[in-house]
């Protein structure tokens, strides 16, 4: 009996020890992890001078760059990092990259030991959330008079300004892509349809398309941010006298912005498409790839998408298919085209150990030479002003760049909505396209989400 009790006690002791050890284990690795880079940090601080902006100071120590590899590839990153390394031979640059890097590095961001520099792209990372989490360095003051390696003021060469969160800047847009509506020019020519320039002509040609037995419009209901980004948001701006600050107010969770008549007017345009039977019924259940395949097969005439579409579907584009593109179709006749941009940004980690090197890297990549280089190597327009017409960039990238720099285009700068509100808007738009709710209910639902999110 006694023995049994002893063993039971022993067993419990072993378990307790194991559990506490497990606790210790993670504790240890944490403290170790936080200790390690602090050794490197002083070295960096000692050698880098504070006025790195004007004179290329000698950068030393470790410098780690995290970049997600997705649709834009990693060619540009490899090239620009190699160039930066060549310019700073004493700096030990480490690349953390890949399609899963955002997940892989997540424990380090949580543990307060992030890489120094981060490219915010791909799922998982959301700049607004990172700002709210206090993960990003406040760049407001630095950016005011930061000059790049060529001596140009960085803010001067940005095609689109950085997004402000409560008046502060934390990340700088690197890519400048645009949402919009595509069609097949070859098909339009063959059928004698006219290309849309505004909402009235869009409706008129859709009527014809429908009469010719083709469904006018397909989108991906599984990912409703395509229709929101390409139709709804530009429509809201058009209905708001081309003033995009309404979207910024929406992103700042201001309820009044959502209740504005411009939002209802925009929603009613989607309702009009729905009620005229222009929206392909398949849309609600399919993903972006399926919707794009149907579009490429000419089963549907228009598709809301981003400028990466030709690149993304390059392997499946049938011979003779010719992409037509307009950033928005919801403006009144004679009104300005509204381009809702889609960007990916770069930022410095607040808990980064080598912020001087990170700032120097920002000064290095935001230079005019990179505009063409980014466009060529990634197949997307860069957010750096610069003439890329002479570069080897794909022609649709050049076209897009033309659109985005045209004085007659209203360009909406990058805007990130609160994740909860964004989801509510996506769900509500989906519901609107299949007639389960009215535009008023859309507003009610989304404002409820806004109120809850800003609590």
């Amino acid at each position, binding site marked *: 009996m006694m023995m049994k009790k002893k063993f039971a006690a022993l*067993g419990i002791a072993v378990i307790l020890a194991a559990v506490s050890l497990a606790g210790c284990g993670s504790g240890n690795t944490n403290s170790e992890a936080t200790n390690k880079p602090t050794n490197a940090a002083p070295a960096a601080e000692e050698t880098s001078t504070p006025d790195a902006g004007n004179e290329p100071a000698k950068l030393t120590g470790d410098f780690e760059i995290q970049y997600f590899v997705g649709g834009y590839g990693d060619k540009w990153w490899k090239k620009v990092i190699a160039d930066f390394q060549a310019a700073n031979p004493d700096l030990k640059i480490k690349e953390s990259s890949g399609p899963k890097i955002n997940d892989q590095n997540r424990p380090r961001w*949580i543990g307060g030991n992030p890489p120094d520099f981060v490219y915010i792209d791909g799922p*998982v990372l959301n700049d607004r*959330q990172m700002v709210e989490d206090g993960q990003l360095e406040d760049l407001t003051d630095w950016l005011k008079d930061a000059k790049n390696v060529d001596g140009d003021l960085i803010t001067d060469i940005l095609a689109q300004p950085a997004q402000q969160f409560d008046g502060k800047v934390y990340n700088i847009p690197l890519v400048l892509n645009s949402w919009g509506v595509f069609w097949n020019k070859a098909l339009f020519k063959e059928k004698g349809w006219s290309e849309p320039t505004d909402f009235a002509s869009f409706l008129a040609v859709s009527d014809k398309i429908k009469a010719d037995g083709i469904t006018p419009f397909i989108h991906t209901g*599984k990912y409703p941010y395509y229709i929101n980004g390409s139709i709804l948001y530009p429509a809201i701006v058009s209905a708001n006298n081309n003033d995009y600050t309404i979207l910024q107010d929406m992103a700042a969770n201001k309820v009044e912005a959502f209740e504005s008549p411009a939002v209802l007017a925009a929603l009613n345009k989607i309702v009009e498409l729905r009620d005229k039977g222009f929206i392909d019924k*398949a849309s*609600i259940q399919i993903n972006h790839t399926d919707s794009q395949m149907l579009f490429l097969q000419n089963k549907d005439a228009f598709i809301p998408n981003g400028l990466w579409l030709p690149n993304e579907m390059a392997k499946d584009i049938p011979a003779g298919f010719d992409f037509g593109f307009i950033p928005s179709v919801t403006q009144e006749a004679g009104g300005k085209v509204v381009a809702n941009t889609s960007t990916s940004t770069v930022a410095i980690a607040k808990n980064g150990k080598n912020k001087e090197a990170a700032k120097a890297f920002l000064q290095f990549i935001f230079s005019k030479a990179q505009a063409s280089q980014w466009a060529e190597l990634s197949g997307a327009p860069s957010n750096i002003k610069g003439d890329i017409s002479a570069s080897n960039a794909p022609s649709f990238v050049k076209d897009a760049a033309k659109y985005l720099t045209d004085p007659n285009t209203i360009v909406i700068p990058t805007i990130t909505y609160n*994740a909860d509100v964004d989801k509510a808007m996506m*769900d509500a738009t989906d519901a609107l396209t299949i007639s389960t709710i009215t535009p008023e209910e859309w507003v009610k639902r989304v404002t409820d989400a806004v109120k809850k999110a800003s609590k």
Partner: protein
Amino acid sequence: MNSGTVKWQRNLFIASFIVPTLLFFGVFTIYPVAQGLYYSFFDWSGMSDKKTFVGFDNFVEMFHDPIIWRAIGNDYFLVAGKIVGIMLLATFFAVALTRFGFRLAGFFRSIFFIPNVISVVVIGVLWNFIYNPQIGFLNGFLSLFTKEQVTITWLGFPGHTIWMLLPPAIWAGIGFYMILLIAAIQSIPESYYEAASIEGAGQWKQFWSITVPLTWEQIKVSILNIMMTTLNGSFVIVWIMTEGGPDNSTQVMGSYLYQMAFRQYHFGYGAAIGFIILVLSLITTIVLQRLMRHDTVEMS
């Protein structure tokens, strides 16, 4: 050698088996569950290095969240649908392939088992193609019988898209439980059936009076297993096929957990949903076990 050392050795022997298992169980099961419960008391984005303790707020909020209720409803709908569908078909096939001894039984057994070898992800993609309104098999098949092309959006009904997730889930599950029941039926001595036929019992009577009681343990295990794997694992098929949409109509607890924790940055809330899944699984297991308690029938 006194009895003390014998006992000591015996206990040491037992401990050498139990302690390592217990250790691993503690580190890889108990500890994560405890951590999950711990996180559910925090408001944490899952990315931040700071967490705010909020007590039971996540659970209170869940109570007022209509989507979580719909997710729980969908989960139990799938549990009920899968139990009925899988058990009916698996039992039917098992009996058909054992009791009626026709020649191709082995072949059909392999055929029915195939979906179990395929990853759920592949099954989801496959059924997405079947359900595709434009190029899908189902509409293509139905169009054979109609004048006009059928364009039903199988996964786009606002109200009951969840029904459409039942066929793939059932189809994917039959094989395993069929094999389990086949093994059980084969262990029933043939003489029982012979005696029954001599006494004048038909196939139906034999099924209810011999097969079901003597395979009851396996049926019970199957039902419990279907319930548990559905509550914990229907995430995969939902996420692959609909991501919980359209408009959250096919959300289950697992998919909503993922949505909240990783897409909307409410990790604490996600952890709370995870805890609810655990509690509901436990309660359902106990309830089902009570309901299916049955006098053990001994084969002698």
